[in-house]
Every structure is written in structure tokens, then in C-alpha cells.
């Protein structure tokens, strides 16, 4: 299955990655090469085979709902591009 330029624009929107005009052709070609590769999976007979999500068939471990660690907000926010009064700053969302 191959994808077209319009599909790339839709994927870029879903993935929130701007794909600029200069690279859209190369991006489409590269992705189509990979789709050719993964299309080989179609030949495999997987009738009745359950999907394997965790290689050890392990499931998530649960723990007691207790406070285990406290967070130093200032230390965490030191890595943020823009903060003020302990809050992350983003462009205005609500008018």
C-alpha cells in the first residue's frame, strides 16, 4: 500500500509535526519505501495467532496507592522553555 502527499499532510497533523513544502516529496518517498517493507507481513499466515504485546507475556504490576516520591517543582521546571509562578506558559488557548 502506498501513500500520497495528502496522506502525509493528514499524518503530519495527527502527529503534530509540520512537514514543510521542501521535504514533503522526500518524506513521502521514504515512507513508501518502508511501507513496501512492512507489506511483507501480509504474506504471513497468522490465523488464530494472538498478538504478543509483551515479550514475556507480563502484565502491569500494581502497587499500593501510597505517596512514594515527592516532586521538587522548581527543579522539574528548570528544564521548561517558559514558566511563571510555577506554571508552564503556552500561547493563549482560550479567548
Amino acid at each position, binding site marked *: 500500500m502506498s501513500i500520497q502527499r495528502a496522506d502525509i499532510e493528514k499524518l503530519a497533523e495527527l502527529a503534530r509535526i509540520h512537514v*514543510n513544502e521542501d521535504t514533503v516529496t522526500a*518524506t513521502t518517498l521514504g515512507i513508501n519505501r518502508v*511501507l513496501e517493507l512492512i507489506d511483507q*507481513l501480509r504474506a504471513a499466515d*497468522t490465523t488464530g495467532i494472538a498478538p*504478543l504485546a509483551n*515479550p514475556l507475556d507480563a502484565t502491569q504490576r500494581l502497587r499500593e496507592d501510597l505517596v512514594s516520591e515527592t516532586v521538587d517543582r522548581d527543579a522539574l521546571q528548570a528544564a521548561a522553555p517558559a514558566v511563571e509562578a510555577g506554571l508552564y506558559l*503556552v500561547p493563549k488557548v482560550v479567548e
Partner: protein
Amino acid sequence: MHDLTLAQMCHGLARRDFSSTELTRHLLERIGAANPRYNAFITIASETALAQAAAADRRRAAGDAPALCGLPIAHKDIFCTRGLRTSCGSRMLDNFVPPYDATVVERCAAAGAVVLGKTNMDEFAMGSSNETSYYGPVKNPWATDCVPGGSSGGSAAALAARLVPGATASDTGGSIRQPAALCGVTGLKPTYGRVSRWGMIAFASSLDQAGPMARTAEDVALLLQVMAGFDARDSTCLDRPVPDYAATLEQPLAGLRIGVPEEYFGAGLHPGTERAVREALAEFERQGARLVAISLPHSGLAVPAYYVIAPAEASANLSRFDGVRYGHRCADPVDLRDLYMRSREEGFGDEVKRRILIGTYCLSAGYYDAYYNKAQQVRRLIRQDFLDAFANVDLILGPTCPNPAFAFGAKGGDPVAMYLEDIYTIAANLAGLPALSVPCGLVDAKPVGLQIIGNYFDEARMLNAAHRYQLATGWHQLAPPALTETAA
């Protein structure tokens, strides 16, 4: 001093032949001189390393010398290090200084290790050549016009160039084993869940595993001993006892059953690599092991399944990089959508963007069953191949990679040509099995690796086999010719 293995350095420190401060200073000087040539380090941590070395010397003088006391190592730049920049090879995290240490980093520090710096890598560990690093590619010390492999190319090249005796790394589809093979060092991807991934920047969470690299199996065992074990902070980390890996290293191999998969010796394998691997198999036979022909019939589907599963998981994991809480933010965003779209466009490189888009496609409505679900079914078939094989054999041996190191740019713009370099390593990640690579020869004057795949949690037996092989052969001791010429 830089030619010594970790085990030899450990003896030297214990005998007071040299101090950790002397050792650390010597290696920092070498790194300072050689890094412009190899680009193996993104960050060199001279000041903190010397402080850690001084602390280790004091600790040893006080009679308290844990396993890695005063031993210099490097961390792949995928592991968060508190107060020390952690870039993951990406512009996205160019200025990221983590507020915490990864569990692996914490364990090494508790064992007394000295951290010389953070090693270069493919961006977000996505690559097999180090060419996707935002900081430029690492050069292979065996041939500087060739790639070191990837994604842990910086760790592998630093080891080969004798800049560091041990390093951490991570492996999602071969990122420890392939660079180890191409740089002539020893690297182990442990069983999925054996080593905590907490604080290791996530790529594909059902495949990622942290592991050690060094120049000998003995040193890999020493590092794994420190790295392995349960960690409640990683929900996929398994609570199983960690055996004493050093205790069984010397065991004779008589009676060992070695599976040799026919699919790993087919078309695409360089004849020189095949010769080297077959000679290695003969050495195991000489030591009393028995070779058993086996088949892993779904091997050919490993790369296609991987390139659905890994990008799918990556597209979810990398959604956290939004330009809000950490990482790159574009200039002057007009609204929140623009902030996301341009921060991610600018912060990620081409290969990372390609994989995020592919993953998004495979997970999108209407395609999930055809791609993601199908790949996870194939994954079970691949694992079953191994389970069937391990009913009759103890280890599976074959080549780590089809070819020795290739030239920069050799794979051109074709992502699939690059992906196929991982044809023998990816299946172990899909199945969650441990696998290691040891140097087993030179092809075109460049190293190639023997891959040893073990059953779940059978790292001790793999290290035993690798160590016995290294006692009988000298491939792991070879240094890149440029180093010996400089010394002479």
C-alpha cells in the same frame, strides 16, 4: 593504562599501582585529544569525574571498595544524569539537564563508578550508523571513513579507541550488538526486564533494554552485575534474583548444545563474515560444545514486524516532546497548535520524524489491524521459533551483522537498506531474549561479531561461553591499527 580492561584496572587500583584520580586524569586527557577525531562523546564531564575519582580514592583508602570503585565508565546519552546534559542525540534535548538520575546511572554511582562523560548516539536511538545524531556522526576507530554502527556508536567507538574501559548502552533492535560488532568490542543486550529502564529515554517500550559494553565478556559481566536487578520504578522490570555472573565465567563448555540457525547464513551474508563466524563455531566445538542445525522459520519477518511495532511505540513515546515542559520550543508561536507543529518539526531530525509518521499511520483508524495487530501476531510466531529451538539447544550462535562497517553515506537515502543491517539482531528484541556480540575476526581489516542468543535470563551461560571463547582467541584484544601506530 588505557589498554587495561576493567578487571585489570580493578586489580591495579586494589594493589595501589595507580589511583582512580590518576586513571581518570589519563583517560580524560585521551578523550580530550581523540574526541575531535572520533566524536564519540557529546559531553565530557571532566570536573565531576575528577571529583568522583577523588571520592572513590578516599573510599578505597577507608577500606570500602564496592564493585566499580574508582573505575571510569561512560554513559550513553540516553540515560538521564542529574545535573549533566542529556541530549539523546537530538536537537530536541540539546539543552536538557535532567533533575534526576536513571536507575542504571544511580546503580553505577552507588558501586563507585566514575563517569567520564556521555556518549554520542543516533537521535533517540533510531539508527544503525550514528549518522542521525544531531551532533554529527561518530567515526569508527578502525576506519574513520566508516560508521561505528548504531545507535550506541559512541559507546562502542570510545571502547575501541581505548578512551574508556566500560560503557552503558541500550538496544531496541540491535543498538548494543551491532556497534559492538562493527567496532570490535563486546556488548550484551540483557533479557527484557532484566535491567531497569527508569530514566532511560524511551523509544519503543516493549523492545528497549539497557545493557553494558566493554572490551571483554568478563568486564561485561562485571557491569551487568551492577546494572541488573529489580526496580519498582520501571513497571516492566522483573523481580528475579540476579545470579553471580563472575562465578560461572570459567565453566568448561563440554556438552553445551549450540543451535546454528540456517536462516542466519543465507543470502546477504558477507562471505568473510560467514567464514569468521564458522571459525568461531569450530572453536566452540573444540571446547566440547555440540553444534545443532536449527531453523527459525519466521526470521525473514522480523525486520518488517519491527518497523511497524517500533515506530508505533515511538510515535506514542515521543508525543511527550511538545515544546511545553522541556525540550526545544520554536520561536514566536502564534497559537498552541503552531507551537507543537513547529517545535517538533525543528527539534526532531528526518529519521525520527519518518518513524513518528509511520507509527502514526500504522496506529491510525482503518490500518491498525492490517499493520499493528498483524505485526504483533507475527511477533508471537517469531518468539515461538525461539521457544521451539531452545527446547533442544542451550544457546543460538550466528553472525551479529551481515557486513563489517560500511562507509558514511553508503546507504544513501534508502532507509530500508539501512534497516536490513539489523537483520540478525532484531528478532531477539521482538522475543525479549538476551543476546550478546563478541569480536570474532576481521573482514577487510574491520571487525565482525559473533552473536550469542540465550534463553530468557540465561545471561550467565552466554557470558560463560563468550569468556571461554575469549580465553582461546585474541580477536577481542585487537586494537585499531591507528592506535598502535600512534603509540609506536
